[in-house]
């Protein structure tokens, strides 16, 4: 089959590799019909996540048709159409039973590596480094899904791939990020990053009762999308002083909740930005956190800073003083996708949300190398790329 493989910083290639097969009784194999590139994949592309190896198959957002099931998978059958969640979770352990699926204790075969780095291991993740399991990902024609009796959700007929694909990650991620903010009616929610995660966090903030949503980014078409599709007021952080503007909008108090949907490679302007870039290049810190710093400073006293943005290791100059003295609550985590798929699917099915608006490109799998570059550099108005492993439906740039 064809698969998108990591070969080093700025180097992904589509290669011919063997087809996957069932390795454990609870596995299933799907023929992938749609798969997407995520902001998280950019951290791999840019070489900031350790324990990647040449030849690793990428991709954690995918859906498809079941073509084989292991002997212990009773709820799926060949031919079922499913969306697969990016965290690999067993469903049996303490955390899975608490519905904290991304903290599954059993799904990472290389847990010891993550334990060395973080003290404890989270779940395994598709196509996301050996430290997180070394599982082959789904930017490929076929994919193997462990614990297939727990993860994948069946999709009813009548919904397109484009409508449901993002149940695999970015829609639940935006939703969980907003849910973590403990939004009360009328709250002001500010969101850094108007990428797919940020946009879905904005939509979710409305669903959860926000009174005002503010988007902070610098990419015009993304800000435009935030305004038109997600009802956000927009701030271009290169044009205005974000802290002043947010204070202005909230009578000086600051947003009730701040969401950091940018992650470890935030655009870092100014002197402090230069400092971060040098330290990150020397691997003295592994992430650049300007948006996080700003979110912490902007947040109102007693407010919540919710961080879906991914960080891998260490960052510098986090304003701990502000966190303590303003009594802030910090929330973070890889998303417990399995918890949100069914309720969000229902909202999609009854027409409440249509996540497909973020798609700007539908390309054949072979175009993955160019797609990564375009998505990373935000070229050609790119917000979200869907790859079509079998070529069908690869319409190129999408006009909405």
């Amino acid at each position: 089959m064809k698969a998108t493989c990591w070969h080093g910083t700025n180097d992904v290639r589509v290669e011919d590799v063997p087809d996957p097969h069932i390795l454990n009784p609870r596995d299933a194999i799907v023929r992938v019909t749609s798969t997407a590139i995520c902001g998280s994949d950019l951290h791999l592309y840019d070489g900031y996540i350790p324990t990647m190896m040449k030849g690793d198959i990428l991709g954690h957002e995918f859906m498809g048709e079941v073509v084989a099931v292991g002997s212990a998978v009773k709820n799926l059958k060949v031919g079922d159409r499913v969306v697969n969640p990016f965290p690999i979770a067993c469903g049996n352990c303490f955390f899975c039973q608490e519905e904290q699926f991304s903290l599954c204790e059993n799904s990472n075969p290389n847990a010891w590596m993550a334990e060395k780095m973080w003290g404890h291991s989270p779940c395994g993740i598709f196509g996301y480094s050996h430290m997180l399991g070394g599982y082959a990902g789904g930017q490929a024609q076929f994919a193997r899904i462990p614990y297939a009796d727990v993860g994948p959700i069946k999709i009813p007929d009548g919904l397109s791939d484009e409508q449901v694909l993002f149940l695999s990650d970015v829609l639940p991620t935006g939703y969980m990020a907003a849910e973590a903010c403990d939004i009360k009616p009328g709250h002001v929610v500010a969101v850094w990053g108007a990428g797919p995660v940020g946009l879905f966090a904005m939509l979710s903030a409305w669903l959860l009762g926000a009174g005002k949503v503010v988007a902070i980014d610098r990419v015009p078409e993304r800000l435009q999308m935030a305004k038109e599709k997600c009802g956000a007021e927009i701030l271009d952080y290169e044009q205005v002083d974000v802290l002043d503007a947010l204070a202005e909008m909230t009578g000086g108090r600051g947003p009730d909740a701040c969401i950091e949907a940018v992650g470890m490679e935030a655009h870092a302007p100014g002197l402090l930005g230069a400092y971060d870039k040098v330290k990150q290049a020397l691997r003295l810190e592994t992430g650049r956190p300007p948006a996080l710093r700003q979110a912490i400073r902007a947040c109102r006293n007693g407010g919540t800073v919710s961080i879906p943005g991914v960080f891998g290791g260490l960052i510098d100059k986090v304003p701990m003083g502000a966190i303590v003295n303003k009594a802030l609550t910090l929330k973070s985590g890889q998303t417990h996708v399995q918890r949100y798929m069914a309720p969000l699917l229902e909202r999609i099915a009854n027409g409440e949300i249509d996540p497909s608006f973020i798609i700007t490109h539908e390309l054949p799998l072979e175009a993955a190398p160019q797609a990564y570059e375009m998505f990373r550099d935000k070229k050609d108005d790119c917000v979200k790329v869907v790859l079509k492993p079998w070529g069908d439906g690869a319409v190129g740039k999408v006009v909405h």
Partner: protein
Amino acid sequence: MEFEHPRLARALGWFSLGLGLTQLAVPRQLSRAIGVGENPLLMRGLGLREIGTGVGLLARPRPVNWLWARVAGDVMDLALLGAAMRQQDTDRQKTLWASLAVAGVTALDAFAAMRLGRSLKEGVEAARRERGIPVEHSLAVNRSPAECYRFWRRFDNLPRFMKHVESIECEGNRSHWVVRAPGGTVEWDAEIVEDRPDDRIRWRSVEGSDVETYGWVRFEPGPQGRGCTVHVCLRYDPPGGALGAFFARLFGENPERQIREDMRHFKQVIETGEIPTTQGQPTGSRGLIGRTLAHGRHLS
């Protein structure tokens, strides 16, 4: 086993640091003092090497390898001094004294390395003879004490998660263990000496076995009746000679890590019915490092 930090190694560590810093700070003056032509770049390079060795010596509790690194460094210095003797601009008198000093230090380094190496080996062997190699571990498992007990009580389940155990046949209180060894297997019979349902099991090898082993497992109910904490202890008293070496290898350099991985697999099997794996999944073309690592022990 803790050994006192060897004083000689420490002293040599500080010596390395001091010398290295001097080489870094005043490379020219130092060159003049030992009578060789000035080459600050080389001198600073040597200084960095010294500092590295010094830090290694001071940071490790039993720095045998770092002592040998010093010996290697000394040999390199002697070779450089020897080469310098043949240069035009060398003050041969001074360089000869410097060489003699280095030779003296070399002898001291080699002595320290050999002595520490020997005492380490003796210490390890003595400790093994006296106490065997007991390893203990505890792990929270999301199954009741009764379920865990029932699973463990059937010793033929143990090879499903104990990496080195090939098979166990059990009959009543007796079990026959076959354990993988380099170039073959080792076997012994064990018997259960304490059996408290849903609570604990203790077993030991029967009298006259080649390998004296002993183990227990205890299932402590988890907080609020959820799951349990499994405590396990395994001890092997290896005989001397080849088998002793085998057990040293069996548990590798880090027996704690081995039991941790085995117990992780126990948890996975009893909670999920399988051990997660990526062995056999497709990959793109691996680089050289990847191909080498793929043969490694724990990377999937």
